[in-house]
């Protein structure tokens, strides 16, 4: 199996994840926090795909699609919250 060499790349993604957590917990304003949560979601999607290959269980990859979709939905909710309009409009 050629998959084992992925182990040398995973720590970099973890370092990126930890740096985004720092910004998400520290972020002075609301949009900063949401942006950092977005980045966490995207790096997690990449990690889920890498892990599904790495652990040899290909069927668990469907989780990454759903995570991408709902992170986008969180963006939409927060921008709707920040706008002055009524929710339905």
């Amino acid at each position, binding site marked *: *199996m*050629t*998959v084992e*060499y*992925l182990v040398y*790349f995973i720590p*970099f*993604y973890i*370092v*990126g*994840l*930890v*740096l*985004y957590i*720092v*910004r998400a917990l520290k972020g002075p*304003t*609301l*949009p*900063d926090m*949401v*942006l*950092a949560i*977005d*980045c966490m979601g*995207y*790096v997690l*999607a*990449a990690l889920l*795909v*890498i892990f*599904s*290959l790495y652990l040899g269980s*290909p*069927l668990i*990859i*469907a989780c*990454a*699609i759903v995570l*991408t*979709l709902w*992170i*986008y939905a969180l*963006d*939409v909710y*927060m*921008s*709707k919250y*920040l*706008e*002055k309009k009524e929710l339905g409009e």
Partner: protein
Amino acid sequence: MNLLNPVLTIIGYVLVGIGAFCQVVAGIGMNRFPNFFVRLHAATICAIGGSFVPIIGCSLIALSIEEFGVIRFFLAGAGFVTAVFLLILAPVGSHLLAKAAYFSKAAVLYPKAVDLLEEDVERGEIRE
């Protein structure tokens, strides 16, 4: 197919390596940049360079592993779908968030050199 497999594997690993580099760079940028609107650049590097590229790379690696059998096409297909979603949705999400943050004044543009959007709004060319 056998001849192509090593090529696919090498390309896939190169893409995953690019993704790892981009993640670390974007993480540093996320913490060092001064305000929200500058941090959007770091978020773009994270979404496209750090996630879209390695997911494509993982799909290519998956195509080259013949021990998975037919399942490897499932893995590669789901990977491509995830990558396409990410490519379309991540910039749109950033755009919506940036627009809402600018017009609701939730994020302050602190070291401000020039704000062309504000001038346009004052002249009435762009409506909120």
